[in-house]
């Protein structure tokens, strides 16, 4: 039936599940991804879901990648088409030579298939209905049955899946055995009725190592627990809600006093983002480590308070799980589109510290570091995740914590220091780093109190509208921002094998696709030095990198090349030398996209000598 040879690949293919949301498919699909990991083969799964609870199409894509390419690849080798609504589009999206897995209970006209793919029909509904009577059970176990059939087709070890089910339903014997039963129903049917395995196979390997499989939002929330956050105020918004929810569940496990059962944290679901950031600012002003998690629309609402944090110098940590904007945009699609909005948030002259983690491991580290930075710098620190890192499980190095680490609470003037007669000026720069001392409310009966305000004031926090006094303060804030450059995570540079005039700058969730793209570009003969920016303000090594290369590509996931704008603006360099490579359709950027965009530009740059061209 096929006029194209079926794809044959071991441990390197993409399976996409097309489901209806609310059908319980998510857990079965995640089980599939985890099962492959248990084979020692890296996977990179992605949820592609609508802003809806039930009834709309949703996809789950698993990239099986022994080589460890964790970015999205693009293309589908096997489609598990469980959603009639999207059938035509799903079938059309399969790579030539690929595979279509579907529920063959109802006959389909031949026009609904393609002749360049392998079609695998399993009567899932029939099997399910003959085994289960309860409609909910039918729905849920159908998912496990297709998982069983896939295990047979892809030559997966059923014991590893059983083991995972056992861990998931530990202590719930009934659920455990019924899930295992469903798994074998599907697997046995496939083994008896289909040619197993197919060309796509999972073979045991050892490429996972000690890596862990975690969502960025959960890792960031854990970073907040380890980093000593005690106050969390938030307002539900996709894709950030799971940060606060994960923080809540981590705190329930790790933050209750064992004797009294009381909570060493306070979480408030605010009435909106204004209240959330207000609570964070109030708590931080009063000496607690506090944070909020939000997304673009929330950032827009918070900007007045962000300006207050900058000008009155109050610590705050904002985790921004970016989604496609502007306005409501595409709430369940990924982008890196709030770079400018966050870097310069609020009216007047403001600048803010941004951290760009590349994966959950860095989300954990940077989240914890954000609280140190916020208290050290007495300003807002943005942790810039995006939906791709935040809401997908990602394979990453294990989380680490040094037990000797103490929190950096910044410059706090204590009652003892005040008693010693230390000069306290809330906005007085005593050692040239632009950072003044602060006191917590209630510190001393007669010394160290001050009036915090968003209006201008002098070094001793006394209201002033004098021009020089205002300018003096604004200049000190510039000095403080310069100090920040050396405190934030530095960029990481990786050079090409051979010296090259070309460089590439990237950040955040683009990382795995970029790493893979470098290999593709090298295969085409393009050598590129790489710089992964991990924070704003930019460290001086960014300027050096720009100076060392003729052209630098700036790869990012937004329309207006916002990081490039920020680099041009902050470094005062000729924009022509910075080539924007932008991907902004809401899907995660792929290696194929980057390699093509940069490769085409490189080919275009190569000047063919005239003599060679005419000969």
């Amino acid at each position: 039936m096929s006029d194209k040879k079926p794809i044959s690949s071991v441990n390197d293919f993409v399976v996409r599940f097309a489901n209806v949301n609310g059908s319980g498919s998510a857990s079965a699909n995640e089980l599939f991804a985890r099962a492959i990991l248990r084979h020692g083969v890296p996977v990179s799964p992605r949820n592609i879901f609508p802003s809806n609870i039930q009834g709309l199409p949703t996809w789950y894509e698993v990239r099986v990648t022994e080589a460890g390419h964790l970015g999205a690849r693009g293309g589908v080798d096997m489609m598990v088409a469980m959603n009639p609504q999207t059938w035509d589009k799903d079938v059309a999206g399969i790579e030539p030579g690929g595979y279509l897995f579907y529920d063959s209970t109802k006959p389909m006209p031949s026009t609904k298939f393609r002749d360049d793919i392998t079609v695998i029909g399993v009567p899932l509904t029939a099997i399910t209905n003959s085994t289960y009577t309860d409609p909910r059970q039918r729905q849920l176990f159908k998912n496990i049955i297709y998982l069983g059939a896939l295990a047979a087709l892809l030559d997966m070890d059923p014991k590893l899946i059983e083991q995972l089910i056992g861990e998931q339903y530990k202590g719930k014997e009934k659920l455990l055995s019924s899930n295992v039963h469903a798994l074998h129903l599907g697997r046995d049917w496939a083994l008896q009725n289909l040619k197993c395995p197919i060309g796509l196979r999972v073979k045991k390997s050892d490429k996972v190592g000690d890596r862990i499989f975690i969502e960025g939002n959960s890792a960031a929330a854990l970073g907040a627990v380890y980093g000593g956050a005690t106050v969390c105020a938030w307002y539900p918004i996709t894709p950030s809600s799971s940060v606060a929810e994960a923080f809540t569940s981590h705190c329930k496990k790790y933050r209750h006093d064992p004797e009294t059962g009381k909570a060493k944290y306070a979480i408030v679901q605010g009435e909106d983002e204004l209240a959330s950031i207000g609570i964070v600012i109030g708590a931080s002003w009063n000496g607690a480590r506090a944070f909020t998690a939000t997304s673009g629309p929330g950032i827009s609402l918070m900007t007045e308070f962000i300006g207050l944090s900058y000008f009155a110098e109050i610590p705050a940590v904002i985790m921004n799980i970016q989604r496609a904007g502007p306005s409501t945009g595409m709430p369940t699609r990924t982008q890196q589109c709030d770079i400018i909005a966050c870097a310069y948030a609020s009216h007047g002259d403001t600048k803010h510290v941004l951290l760009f983690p590349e994966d959950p491991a860095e989300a954990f580290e940077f989240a914890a570091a954000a609280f140190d930075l916020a208290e050290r710098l007495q300003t807002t620190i943005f942790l810039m995740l995006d939906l791709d890192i935040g809401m997908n499980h990602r394979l990453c190095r294990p989380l680490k914590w040094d037990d000797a680490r103490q929190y950096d609470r910044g410059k706090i003037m204590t009652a003892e220091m005040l008693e010693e007669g230390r000069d306290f000026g809330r906005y007085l720069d005593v050692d040239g780093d632009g950072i003044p001392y602060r006191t917590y409310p209630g510190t001393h009966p007669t010394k160290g109190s001050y009036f915090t305000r968003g209006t201008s004031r002098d070094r001793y926090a006394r209201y002033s509208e004098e021009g020089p006094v205002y300018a003096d303060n604004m200049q000190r804030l510039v000095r403080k921002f310069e100090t920040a450059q050396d405190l934030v995570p530095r960029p990481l540079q990786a050079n090409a094998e051979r010296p090259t005039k070309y460089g590439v700058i990237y950040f955040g969730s683009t990382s795995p696709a970029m790493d893979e793209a470098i290999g593709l570009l090298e295969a085409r003969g393009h050598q590129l030095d790489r710089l992964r920016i991990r924070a704003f303000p930019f460290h001086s090594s960014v300027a050096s990198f720009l100076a060392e290369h003729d052209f630098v590509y700036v790869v990012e996931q937004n329309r207006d090349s916002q990081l490039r704008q920020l680099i041009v603006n902050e470094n005062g360099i000729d924009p022509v030398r910075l080539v924007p490579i932008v991907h902004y359709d809401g899907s995660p950027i792929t290696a194929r996209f980057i390699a093509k965009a940069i490769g085409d530009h490189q080919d275009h740059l190569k000047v063919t000598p005239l003599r060679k061209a005419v000969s």
Partner: protein
Amino acid sequence: MTYIAKPKFHHPGLKKNELGYTHRDYEGKISTLCAGCGHDSITASIIEACYELSIEPHRVAKISGIGCSSKTPDYFLGNSHGFNSVHGRMPSVLTGANLANRDLIYLGVSGDGDSASIGFGQFAHSIRRCVNMTYIVENNGVYGLTKGQFSATADRGSKSKKGVTNTDNAIDLVAIALQLGATFVARSFSGDKTQLVPLIAAAIRHKGASFIDVISPCIAFNNHAGSTKSFDYVREHNDAVNRLDVLVGRDPIAVDYAPGTVQVVEQHDGSRVALRKIDADYDPHDRLGAMTFLQKHAAKGQIVTGLLYVDPEAEDLHEHLNTVETPLNTLEADTLCPGSAVLDKINASLR
């Protein structure tokens, strides 16, 4: 805006409270509000109440929004930390501050624009969250700093200084506070310090969300005929249901009251409030009754003042969140960080 330094010397014979502080220790900078502003009387009442309660001034956190009223925390408790935050956002800042350190006294000062217009939502939500605070609205029905626009508490039919008649309905913050579950609700008048001072003192001693709406005429923009927030109008229409004496400690009540005229309310911290009834039928423990009473009298154009509702057994946000007794802002890595051994276990569960 304070160009004149306030002299620090005082009469050597000035009375001292239990902690040895004089009135002067509870003062702040010189007010820059207009001479005769009702807000200055409220400032004086706050100073008086804190003095009488023998509160350590630095253990109070004063938080405000933006506007004339929100400037006033600079004019009292000069040894306290103050926070003049963002317009309409005092309640959230105060909530956060309270979560960080439950041991301080939180005094929220706001205005009618700050709380009934731009900050109506935050006002409502801080009340329904039962934040332990004293929330004072200095209510003059007008935007003073921007020169006389109506605020959301301006009564329908009242006239602005420029002669414009307000056609919008007024928000009664007291009615809303009652509806949202505030556990101490009062209204007073800046021109009636004898009523206001004990109300503020009792509100501070109350554990839970205390709300006081203080009608405070704006001398510059809302003190003319046709205004329902002028000194004359409020004096004429003030309908006080009771007057208070705050009795700290458990000593026998020394004051002689005529029998049946006094109701003693014991608060959470052991302090007591003696309510001298003016309206014999008014019961300040009846939330529903208070709401009805208020509506009926408002319809007659009367401004009901006094302690309108109190629940002495109130709970606060910290109780609802079950937080530790130790202020959260004093906790360090040794108690907050689960450590590397736990992290290893977490890692193991993620493979």
